[in-house]
């Protein structure tokens, strides 16, 4: 066991998968000599050389598009998009192709590839550097979308993503990169994609979150326990798509109440699917409407105003109290 922050944990996953499988390679802007602007690919260039850790020209569509070609050949590229805000430049390559080659060729080809990108706020960054675009990927059939919540599961999920035969979009919350360290086993470990984690059991209400919001949900649960004597179950989705409806429905069937928390804007966001799925799966158990705590529906608020938009503990607690009191 070593204690690692999320950056180092992700780095370890890349290092070990590359050691294990010569078909795994890394490409993106500044991922080589510089080690990535967040240092997730640090030292890989030194270890594996410029042919396997490719400092690409500044062009997201070609990063993903050439990775699609590599994957069709049988390689397993891991792309880094510097910030999720710049991934719309390659969205057509993801939607038109990465997600579809398997079906288009009826299994003759497929795209075993990962597209990693840092997302989310809380880092005092400029426009396009703080947004949460997970919904755009969650809704694309043919893709998987993984959002880890801490160093250990980030490492284990990245290992799974690299080994997964389908294209995986891997969202890394910038706010978590250096937030805390965790014990991470030196031996490679993998976590199943598509499976949510019950981060904390409880019977009065279910708090549903992913990425950086898991910590917020856990802290809110703590407040609820301490101040309201309410036991919240906290679900950490880990994978957004395919969504683990079974775990969600199981929890809400028990608690009858739920609050979904995310950094993406509220309208037409991931919380909508979660709420709709819960209504379908646990209608008769519902004692209150499922609430969504999310960012406001405006383009970008500027980091000077960000705190008023992104969910925080008091907002989750307030929503939970309303739900409990319904």
């Amino acid at each position: 066991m070593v204690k690692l922050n999320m950056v180092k944990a992700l780095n370890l996953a890349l290092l070990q998968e590359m050691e294990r499988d010569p078909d795994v390679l890394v490409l993106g802007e500044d991922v080589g000599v510089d080690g990535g602007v967040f240092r997730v690919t640090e030292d890989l260039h030194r270890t594996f050389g410029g042919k396997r850790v490719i400092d690409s020209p500044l062009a997201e569509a070609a990063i993903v598009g050439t990775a699609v070609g590599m994957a069709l050949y049988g390689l397993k590229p891991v792309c880094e998009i510097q910030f999720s805000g710049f991934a719309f430049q390659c969205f057509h390559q993801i939607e038109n192709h990465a997600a579809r080659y398997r079906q288009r060729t009826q299994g003759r080809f497929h795209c075993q590839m990962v597209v990693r990108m840092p997302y989310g706020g809380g880092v005092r960054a400029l426009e396009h550097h703080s947004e949460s675009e997970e919904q755009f990927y969650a809704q694309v059939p043919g893709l998987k979308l993984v959002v880890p919540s801490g160093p250990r599961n980030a490492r284990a999920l990245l290992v799974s993503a690299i080994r997964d035969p389908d294209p995986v979009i891997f969202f890394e919350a910038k706010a978590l990169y250096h937030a805390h360290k965790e014990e991470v086993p030196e031996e490679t470990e993998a976590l199943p994609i598509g499976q949510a984690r019950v981060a904390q059991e409880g019977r009065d209400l279910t708090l549903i979150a992913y990425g950086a919001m898991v910590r917020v949900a856990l802290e809110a649960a703590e407040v609820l326990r301490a101040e309201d004597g309410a036991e919240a179950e906290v679900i950490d989705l880990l994978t957004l798509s395919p969504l683990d409806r079974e775990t969600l429905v199981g929890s809400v069937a028990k608690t009858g109440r739920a609050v979904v928390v995310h950094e993406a804007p509220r309208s037409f966001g991931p919380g909508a699917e979660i709420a709709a799925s819960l209504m379908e799966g646990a209608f008769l158990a519902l004692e209150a409407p499922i609430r969504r705590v999310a960012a406001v529906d405006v383009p970008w608020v500027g980091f000077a105003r960000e705190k008023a938009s992104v969910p925080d503990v008091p907002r989750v607690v307030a929503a939970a109290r309303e739900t409990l009191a319904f």
Partner: protein
Amino acid sequence: MPRTPLDLRLSVDHLSILDSDGNLDTALEPDIAAGDLKRMYRTMVLGRRLDERMVRLQRQGRIGTFAPIKGQEASQIGAVATLRREDWMVPSFRETAAMLWRGWPIEQLLAFFAGRLEGGRPAPDQRDLPITIPVATQLPHAVGLAYAAQYRGDDAVVMAFFGDGATSEGDFHEAMNFAGVWHVPVVLVCQNNQWAISVPIKKQTHSRTLAQKALAYGFPGIQVDGNDVLAVYAASREAVLRAQAGEGPTLIECVTYRLGVHTTADDPTKYRSEAEVREWERKDPLTRFGAYLEKKTLLEPGLEEELDAEIARAVAVFESLPPADPLTMFEHAYGELPAHLRAQRQEVGERLARTAPDPPAAGEPLPPPPMRGQRKTSRWSN
């Protein structure tokens, strides 16, 4: 050096070997075995005949919209004929002749245009990508394939096709730039057929040639007479050999013409003159290559009938395909079907079992589509 022209050696050649008047530049004439010449001609004619048959199938509602190749046979066959089986071919959506050369069964192409997923499946050992519809988006894939070949130390070359219109897309640019920087074994074949649907090349770009666009990426571009199969072959062969020798990418601009409709939903009389079409009909690549073969006594008598019979057999196979089973639509969405799709498949299965009559077989006529199309144009009315 106050204001000095930089010595950048920016130049572009034009290549023509067999012109439309039958003049042959014997010094440049490529050395192609008789059997290959015959197979090239055969595939060009097959492409042309299949085109015509497909228009009828489309009119009858047996297949949907597709993009005919008439006029572009030389650009396609001259290029792919230089590939080995272990090389890769990356088509756009107007490469029927090239795909036939590469071994795609006719009935599979028909299935593709009948909206059946089965149509897009290359054979297990075939190094072809399927038809790509979004313009220029296949070009980064070609560059990625070429990178992978180089990475693995394989000898394979990648050849990608696209149109004049495609050169305007960002993906063309990004792919060209990556190809240049990575110095990969890729041959980029632009079929400049003068039109992108209704948009003429003059409205597409202000550069005088498309070949010169390669100069922006630091690798060679060459312009060839795209209706001259020998010129296309010679330029492609040179490019393929350069690629194999580790000398990087080449852009080939084939100057050709789309003699027919853009797709079966298009009416070219709206945007171009009969006179222009007549002009280009005189440069028909089949006529020219046929005359060349005739001189070499390589023309096979009865070829057209033979090919028509081959087409007829394939159409029969296509028409006898069992109806598309809707449940198979879930099959290759993911490597393994996730829970929500298992649920959806079950739901669709139950629904079909309850209600649906068998869908019509592939070859059965379908009701006319509600979208515009099927305009009769003079060029297709014969």
